[in-house]
């Protein structure tokens, strides 16, 4: 899969709440095929204290309009500055990077996301739906205030929420949702904080469900040159940027 470096233009900014926003960025030419789980590495030109690019999951893709959608949480200097871009600003993007989630056919699939780890799950749920899978997505957030962007998932399957304070959906962590006990699944996919992904991995292992996780290690290049983003696998150190970000839990030392 050929990697590209291109200037995109910010065409839409949607503030979801004070922490989360969605950027629609548009290419000048037709987008290449982009797989669910892949990411972009964007340059933050409007802040001189941000030296490296910032890797961001691909939230959705509109091939008709050459638009990639990015779901971003303000965490540090880089993501804060991305939230200050103006419509029409240019953004240098290296993409599409990384491997992708596996797409089964006609299976029962479970997607679990927490925090900004929900970012790649929308595009994944769309792919899974189009391949004839039954899709259940659980998003785990602190409170209803953070339960944002849910409507986007509705065309592709069932969307469930857990909140830590019980203000929406079921109270607790996403891995405590009743659907995990009451129903069975063939495949699980997860992205988010490591303790949550480890809980999803443990659940999947106990139920014999194939489980893929998307890791978010810090990286410098995003395309396998710096060797900074490695994760320790059963076959030694692997680059999260090129051999991931998606790993099957059977390959990890979790």
């Amino acid at each position, binding site marked *: 899969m050929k990697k590209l470096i291109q200037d995109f233009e910010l065409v839409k900014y949607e503030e979801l709440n004070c922490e989360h926003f969605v950027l629609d960025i548009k290419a000048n030419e037709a987008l290449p095929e982009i797989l669910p789980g892949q990411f972009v590495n964007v*340059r933050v030109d409007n802040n001189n204290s941000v030296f490296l690019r910032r890797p961001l999951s691909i939230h959705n893709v509109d091939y008709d309009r050459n638009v990639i959608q990015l779901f971003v949480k303000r965490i540090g200097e880089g993501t804060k500055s991305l939230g200050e871009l103006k419509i029409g600003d240019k953004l240098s993007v290296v993409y599409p990077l990384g491997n992708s989630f596996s797409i089964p056919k006609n299976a029962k699939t479970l997607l679990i996301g927490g925090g900004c780890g929900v970012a790649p799950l929308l595009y994944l749920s769309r792919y899974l739906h189009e391949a004839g899978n039954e899709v259940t997505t659980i998003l785990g957030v602190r409170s209803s205030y953070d339960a944002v962007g849910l409507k986007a998932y509705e065309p592709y399957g069932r969307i469930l929420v857990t909140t830590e304070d019980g203000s929406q959906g079921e109270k607790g962590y996403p891995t405590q949702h009743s659907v995990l006990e009451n129903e069975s699944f063939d495949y699980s996919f997860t992205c988010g904080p490591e303790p949550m992904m480890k809980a999803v991995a443990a659940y999947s292992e106990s139920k014999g469900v194939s489980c893929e996780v998307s890791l978010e290690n810090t990286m410098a290049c995003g*395309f396998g*040159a710096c060797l900074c983003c490695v994760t320790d696998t059963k076959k030694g150190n692997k680059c999260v940027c090129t051999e991931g970000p998606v790993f099957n839990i059977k390959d990890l030392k979790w």
Partner: protein
Amino acid sequence: MVNLEVKLKDLVLKNPVMTASGTFGFGEEFADFIDLSDLGGIIVKGTTRHHREGNPYPRMAETPSGMLNAVGLQNKGVENFCQDIYPRIKDYQTNVMVNVSGSVIEDYVETAAMINELEHIPGIELNISCPNVKEGGMAFGTSCASAQEVVRAVRQVYKKHLMVKLSPNVTDIASIAKAVESEGADSVSLINTLLGMAIDAETRKPLLSTVTGGLSGPAVKPVALRMVWQVAQAVNIPVVGLGGIMNAKDAIEFILAGATALQIGTANFIDPQVSVKIVEGIKDYMIRHQVSDINDLIGAIDLK
């Protein structure tokens, strides 16, 4: 037309722009972004006698105008390089050099001897300056005696271009450069990374698994430029300058300080096309300043 060709002794570079080891993989990682034959040379990832897993994650921390890394020479060893990687990269239309690292002299010697047999590898860069390997590496490059010892041993088995990469973590880099020159080094490259560290004040934890790591990027450029200038005056062999070069203007500064060729490192992570853009930028500079031969700019700093 301007002449960009430079010579590192007998090694001809079509232009002075090379890419630095550890920032350019084996070149393949960049083939989607640039035509590798547009470069003067590429120096592939540090290779050791035996497979190394490198250091645990986290290995990288962003710092003001730069980054720290502690990769720790992760590589599959020289035998894997010769068998699996060399056949894939040997036909690149540029000088492909191998960065040879080690922790004991015998390892350097055996690695260099094996690479000496590879027809399409015109030279090695002897890394006596990696700060991220516990036993050795940088230790060789921080005293004249140990630097001489390893260069002397490798020189006996390695017959092609021998570039020695120097550490900036020393009091007097010019004396180290002279020491390796006296043992038959064909060129010196400098600087490797500066030893640094970073702490997360909130968690009180170091940001690197190894606590300390190597600083690179524009933050080190003034130090690198000063050292290139000092070394260029001290030795008669060509000097290859690197350290925080982000654009053609930076590259020209190194040439004026006395560098015959350059290596582009950390900048490759941010713009995978930057090396080729720097070749073009050097050309533009020469046209603008009516310089027809790049060799006329080497060491041409105006101190009057």
